[in-house]
């Protein structure tokens, strides 16, 4: 009896440099769990499916793998998430979109099957603004400032705009929107505009080649890297690697740190890589996206574990049961320590209403050769975002003629 976890990934195509460590992290953790004897004895079977970041290929993977008893899907791409959001409820398989996906899907009352764990683009936007406020010495100091958003012209890049607009309204800063056409290899016009308008800060909402290109253009137009802040998908090694020392001073949100010092990674190195089971090169272990992938698998496993607590230890969980697990995650500091990731992430506690579980993040900065984590943890401001989430979710529900879940459904 094995629990099946499909691994959607992209190791080829335009986003491969980012997709590869991510996929390796996901896979290594699964192998690690198996090396430890599985989840309460249930081993995990997995199969990787290459999506190439393309929606239709992603759908094909989904359809193919769901039949094998998939417990959870991490679509690993915004477009695929959209396409699967409608299918998951029918097939009764939870979707986990850690740090991406629809911001509104945090609302478990409407999005029963979606789990944007640890953050959405709205929380990301909110935290970035808070950080800028801190830098300026108070959010009120943002008044009159000019903040530009350089974003990937796609749903992924557009998601943060409502949250930023809201904040702009609250604090009276100017928000300038600069879309970059995918894949983002040509940004000269964008950065000329930046140079002309000299915004106080630039927020970078890119993925893949767009990030390194943006950095290079920033350098070429002399925009100070210290004033450039990326989303957590613009803050990994591939984004800065080939810019190197020139990108020094650039900061980005961090859902997780990089590095190999904490116990989980050490354990993975020992049990997986030393056993020649590593999915990728050893020196990539602990990189930002690897770690994120690892966390995704970790949380999935934790959800299964939680489900087993309720539905029977040592059994294979169905998608529906795993969903329950996701909805009742409670990873406190103690559990984090057991998992060997204390200090890596904050505790996560999901509920029927809140499918995100945590909205904390930090900022890390590129020092020219590696990412250095900042000390402060930020939490997205619930009072700002919750009403927005609710409104968006209601709208979605109305469009889809979905009824909000009531309490009984939550307790089921």
């Amino acid at each position, binding site marked *: 009896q094995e629990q099946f976890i499909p691994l959607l990934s992209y190791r080829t195509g335009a986003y491969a440099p980012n997709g590869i460590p991510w996929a390796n992290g996901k896979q290594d953790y699964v192998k690690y769990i198996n090396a430890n004897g599985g989840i309460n004895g249930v081993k995990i079977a997995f199969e990787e499916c*290459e999506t190439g970041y393309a929606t239709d290929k992603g759908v094909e993977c989904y359809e193919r793998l769901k*039949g094998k008893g998939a417990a959870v899907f991490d679509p690993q791409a915004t*477009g695929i998430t*959209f*396409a699967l959001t409608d299918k998951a409820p029918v097939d009764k398989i939870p979707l986990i979109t850690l740090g991406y996906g629809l911001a509104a899907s945090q609302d478990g009352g409407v999005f029963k099957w979606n789990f944007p764990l640890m953050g959405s683009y709205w929380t990301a936007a909110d935290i970035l603004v808070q950080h800028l406020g801190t830098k300026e010495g108070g959010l009120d100091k943002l008044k009159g400032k000019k903040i530009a958003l350089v974003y990937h012209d*796609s749903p992924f890049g*557009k998601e943060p705009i409502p949250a930023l607009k809201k904040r702009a309204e609250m604090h009276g800063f100017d928000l300038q929107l600069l879309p970059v*056409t995918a894949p983002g290899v040509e940004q000269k016009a964008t950065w000329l505009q930046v140079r002309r308008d000299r915004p106080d800060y630039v927020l970078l909402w890119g993925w893949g080649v767009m990030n390194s290109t943006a950095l290079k253009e920033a350098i070429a137009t002399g925009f100070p890297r210290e004033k450039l802040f990326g989303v957590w998908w613009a803050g990994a090694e591939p984004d800065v690697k080939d810019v190197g020392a020139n990108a020094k001073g650039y900061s980005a949100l961090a859902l997780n740190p990089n590095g190999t010092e904490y116990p989980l990674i050490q354990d993975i190195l020992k049990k997986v890589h030393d056993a020649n089971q590593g999915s990728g090169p050893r020196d990539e272990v602990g990189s930002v996206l690897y770690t994120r992938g690892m966390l995704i698998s970790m949380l999935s496993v934790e959800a299964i574990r939680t489900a087993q607590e309720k539905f029977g230890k040592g059994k294979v969980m169905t998608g529906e049961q795993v969903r329950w697990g996701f909805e009742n995650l409670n990873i406190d500091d103690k559990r984090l320590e057991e998992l060997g990731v204390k200090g890596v992430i904050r505790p996560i506690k999901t509920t029927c209403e809140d499918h995100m579980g945590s909205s904390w993040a930090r900022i890390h900065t590129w020092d020219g050769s590696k990412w250095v984590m900042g000390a402060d943890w930020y939490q997205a401001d619930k009072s700002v975002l919750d009403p927005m989430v609710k409104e968006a979710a209601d709208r979605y529900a109305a469009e*889809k003629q979905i009824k909000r879940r009531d309490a009984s459904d939550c307790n089921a």
Partner: protein
Amino acid sequence: MLYRENGQFKTSYAADQQIFPIFQERWAMALLLLVAFVVLPLVGSEYWFRAILIPFLILSLAALGLNILVGYCGQISLGTGAFMAVGAYAAYNFMVRIDGMPLIVAMLLGGLSATVIGVLFGIPSLRIKGLYLAVATLAAQFFTDWAFLRIGWFTNNSSSGSVSMARLDVFGLPIESPVTKYLFVLTVVCVFALMAKNLVRSAVGRQWMAIRDMDVAAAVIGIRPMYAKLSAFAVSSFIVGVAGVLWAFIHLGAWEPAAFSIDRSFQLLFMVIIGGLGSISGAFLGAAFIVLLPLALDQVPHLLGIPLSTATITHLVHMIFGALIVFFLIVEPHGLAKLWSVGKQKLRLWPFPH
């Protein structure tokens, strides 16, 4: 011996003008339809419907539409994705803005909207020819990509620019399960394929082909280039638009403009070329080649139990797929449909070589 037209004399022109003049072919077709409509729904798995047959059929339909433009009328288009998108977003708007809009009507209206845009971007074809014309259709492609992202109205002001469509029904029958979706798509595809076939064997079709083969001579025998070209753009974008509606509504359910990106346009063009320009069956064969072959190749290492990383498999699939394209072109430069008909010709002569 089995495949002969000997002794099948036509006594009327009507008989000679049938789509399948040889009775073996008629039987084969009937059998194919029987399998498609009856046998497959009984035996097919959900994966087959959702991940293989439905996308295959819809893309075949789009390729069919494109083939009318490129294969029959000789106007190169790299904007098929755009016309699909226009169909999809237009139908979406008809659905969300007009209460009780029936799916079929919305689908046809989506097609009509695509027609309008198609004809608009087809106007430059009166002056610009060949590869140069690609510019006009590419302009359509990038413009619509942009417009559907940027102009909130099209997406009903969805904040991310992604829209979705669920709960479809036709005459009160819900189109939800994989089988009903499949049957619905299959029906639409069959109807359009038949109509397309009728068009290309009638006067309009001949006008298109005449323009394609030699436009000056066509004009000299009285064919109005403007009418012929624009009607090809119209019919083609109508079919492509309908395919777009199906792709968005039935296959994806939720989509963003990237679902109809330039990659899709190229993909469809390739289907048409490898399948056979100027052939209805070519659209299906081409779609099968481009959509199904990589999927199949992808499965081979799994089936054989060869442990390869997904990246290696994908790279290998690319290499083999590329090599197969070249191989088939060398065997028959005019596409799979031609290969098929040459095959039939050989079969007819069999067992004599010539």
